[in-house]
């Protein structure tokens, strides 16, 4: 039967409750029907990890459980402020007390966890009677405030715990019947899972003092920081023989070790490539205002800058210090890989059967078609659109103005048409940098092809804005009021007669021209909004690919114990007279919390105006930039 070493966390509180945590495998002896399932799972788990560095045959994989482990000393840590103790390992006889102390002080300096000898564990085998008195004498060698004595008799399920204080007074008697006095709770946990797990919300190690931190957090921190303790296994020829979850042989994967060794030169090489790129970008010619302006508008450039920053984070040769940094690096790396894979998939689809040339061939006719539709639209506006009667002269002026623009645009497209296929072929290759790149390029192509719609929108909006502005000002004049710029309010004002006359005249003219300008503005704003909507969808999907924490979600699904929200307790069956035994399991983080916690921050911000603000801007005629991108400088 495969067991695992158990280590315990003991909590001692004078006069109240004691708790001891033991490892998972204790359950195997409790529930006889479970071990097959549990063993199978564990075995599969172990083999999947990789090769074992020490070759042990498959049959002999016994991990000794605490209840079958030999008698020895309990090593662990007292949790400050909570009267608890975490037992991390058992040191077996024979040992030399001096060497034990030396080993513990070495580990203390290495891990910054104050490990001490907590007490003794006795599981007497046949022919080993008389250990009890020997175990009691041990407390004199390792002076402690409280000394734990855990013992288990063969054939019984529960174990008993006694706590002896410094002055020799026994704090709890095993045979105490009345139930008063100190009570003990023993909690079992899976050492490996707690060691690898991270409790959320994540706090830095030195942020809160130990006394304020919650007990659970301290437990998790203690086990996680005591990793060097678990490096000593039974094959090491040291003076001490330890039992813990890894003492049957340290597990490692050869593939993981090779990757770790290989990653350092690869990181250095990639960092050097990145420095080349930065040197190229620092050329003076690229910092001229027009170039800067264009590159801030093209989403491809923005995306490439963003990805370069990511590159720098991921491929820096420095190892990630905290959990948050590690998760950030891993998320960026995985999303980058997925991005490239999707991009290559796209390329293989596009370039098969010459689809890209077909695409290029349809591009010019589509642009032509759009221009033709716009022309028809303008002809319709110049007539009597929707039965409305337009001001003839203004209508003709605006209509001809816009028609001329379209004519220019069509000739420009026709000029470019022989080169379109080549350009598109090479631009399509840029999808190998990632799907996000391809989508950004698509968004830029759409922006360039609908540039005339953007121009029309700007003209229409400006004209409409001027009309509205003039109208509001002249309306105030009509009522005898005026806008006070200094006081930012409307004041009454006495106008001269000629001012009033001309003002009223202009007001009338503008008012009757309003429907025409308003209609042109409405039509072009709608067209612009359609284009903006399409670009917005592309940006949203790019944003999603950039920020989705794939690694964190994968970790949550495959190794849910790594991201812990809290713990769960189950009460284990017990015999009367023994302390309470609880089983502690890790409660994994909810998927929505994982997404919220580990989202990679992106550059684009969502619409800065609410719907009401947007409508107001549209009504007044202000130009809207709904997808304004965040710059590095804070606004």
């Amino acid at each position, binding site marked *: 039967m495969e067991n695992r070493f158990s280590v315990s966390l003991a909590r001692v*509180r004078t006069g*109240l*409750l004691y*708790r001891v945590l033991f490892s998972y495998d204790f359950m195997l002896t409790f529930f006889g029907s479970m071990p097959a399932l549990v063993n199978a799972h564990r075995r599969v788990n172990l083999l999947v990890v990789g090769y074992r560095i020490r070759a042990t045959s498959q049959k002999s994989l016994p991990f000794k459980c605490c209840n079958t482990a030999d008698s020895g000393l309990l090593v662990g840590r007292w949790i400050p402020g909570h009267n608890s103790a975490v037992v991390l390992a058992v040191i077996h006889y024979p040992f030399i007390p001096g060497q034990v102390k030396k080993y513990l002080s070495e580990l203390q300096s290495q891990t910054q966890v104050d490990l001490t000898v907590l007490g003794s564990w006795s599981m007497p085998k046949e022919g080993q009677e008389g250990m009890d008195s020997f175990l009691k004498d041990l407390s004199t060698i390792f002076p402690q405030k409280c000394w734990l004595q855990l013992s288990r008799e063969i054939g019984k399920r529960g174990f008993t715990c006694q706590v002896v204080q410094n002055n020799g007074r026994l704090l709890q008697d095993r045979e105490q019947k009345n*139930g008063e006095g100190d*009570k003990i*709770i023993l909690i079992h946990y899976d050492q490996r899972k707690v060691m690898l797990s991270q409790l959320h919300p994540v706090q830095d190690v030195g942020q809160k003092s130990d006394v*304020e931190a*919650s*007990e*659970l957090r301290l437990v998790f921190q203690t086990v996680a920081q005591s990793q060097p303790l678990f490096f000593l296994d039974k094959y090491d020829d040291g003076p001490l023989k330890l039992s813990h979850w890894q003492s049957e042989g340290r597990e490692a994967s050869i593939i993981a070790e090779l990757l770790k060794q290989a990653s350092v030169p690869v990181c250095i090489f990639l960092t050097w490539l990145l420095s080349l790129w930065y040197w190229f970008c620092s050329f003076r010619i690229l910092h001229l205002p027009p170039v800067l302006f264009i590159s801030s508008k093209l989403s491809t450039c923005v995306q490439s800058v963003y990805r370069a920053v990511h590159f720098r984070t991921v491929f820096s040769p420095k190892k990630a210090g905290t959990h948050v940094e590690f998760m950030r690096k891993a998320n960026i790396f995985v999303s980058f890989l997925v991005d490239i894979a999707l991009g290559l998939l796209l390329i293989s689809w596009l370039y098969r059967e010459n689809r890209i040339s077909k695409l290029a061939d349809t591009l010019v006719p589509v642009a032509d078609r759009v221009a033709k539709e716009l022309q028809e639209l303008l002809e319709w506006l110049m007539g009597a659109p929707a039965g409305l009667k337009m001001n003839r002269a203004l209508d003709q002026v605006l209509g001809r103005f816009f028609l001329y623009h379209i004519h220019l645009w069509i000739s420009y497209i026709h000029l470019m048409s022989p080169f379109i296929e080549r350009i598109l072929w090479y631009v399509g290759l840029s999808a190998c940098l990632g799907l996000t790149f391809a989508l950004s390029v698509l968004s830029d192509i759409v922006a360039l092809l609908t540039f005339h719609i953007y121009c029309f929108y700007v003209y229409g909006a400006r004209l409409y804005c001027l009309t509205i502005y003039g109208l509001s000002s002249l309306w105030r004049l009509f009522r005898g009021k005026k806008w006070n710029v200094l006081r930012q309010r409307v004041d009454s004002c006495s106008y001269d007669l000629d001012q009033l006359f001309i003002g009223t005249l202009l007001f009338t003219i503008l008012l009757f021209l309003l429907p025409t300008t308003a209609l042109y503005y409405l039509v072009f704003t709608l067209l612009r909004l359609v284009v903006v909507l399409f670009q917005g969808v592309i940006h949203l999907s790019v944003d999603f690919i950039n920020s989705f924490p794939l690694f964190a979600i994968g970790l949550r699904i495959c190794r849910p114990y790594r991201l812990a929200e*809290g*713990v*769960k*307790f189950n*009460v284990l069956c*017990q015999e009367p007279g023994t302390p*309470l035994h*609880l089983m502690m399991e890790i*409660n994994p983080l909810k998927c929505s919390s994982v997404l919220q916690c580990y989202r990679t921050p992106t550059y684009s911000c969502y619409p800065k105006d609410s719907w009401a603000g947007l409508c107001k801007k549209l009504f007044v005629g202000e130009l809207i930039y709904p997808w304004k991108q965040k710059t590095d400088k804070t606004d």
Partner: protein
Amino acid sequence: MRGCFLLLTPLVISMAEEEFTDINGNSISLDCQTHSDFCREFTVTSPKLSLRKVMVYTCFVWLFAYAVFFFTENTAVLSSAIILTLAGMMIHIHFVKVDHETLLIIGSLGVQLSSSYASGRESTIFIEMNKLKDIVINEAVYMHSIIYYLCILIKDPADPETVTSVVPLFQSSNPRLNCLVQVYRSCQEILAQSR
């Protein structure tokens, strides 16, 4: 021939199980388990999913789908109705229907609340003792009725006097006051010990 009637009277030994109802009148059951002096577990079991309701609902949806099929002659309507019913049922038993709710109180360690759904899924929260201020019964006025509910007052360990949040218990089973009082008394015994 004389028949022999063998009457087997089942001897029901219920460990603290009495007849309780929830606020809507459905019968629920409360189970108290005492694991130790300072560790108690209370389980409130809601009434199970009623087969009649499920059948009525399914028949209604399928009859409606048949009626639509009769007019449109499109088999996609039928298959979509089947898929919709199945999906709806699975979502209901996995996310909506709560089978039983458990409150495990361990003196000086904390309180664990667990909801177990009809599909077997369990969602658990554990609240440490240093964050727990008190367990109280509150009353809420909802429309025309007054509802009593048991809740846990949470405090920040750094500021023990302020209540930062309130966690209501047994939200899906909604037991009435008599059931709540029993749970409340047991919890207060344990909390008094650990203070």
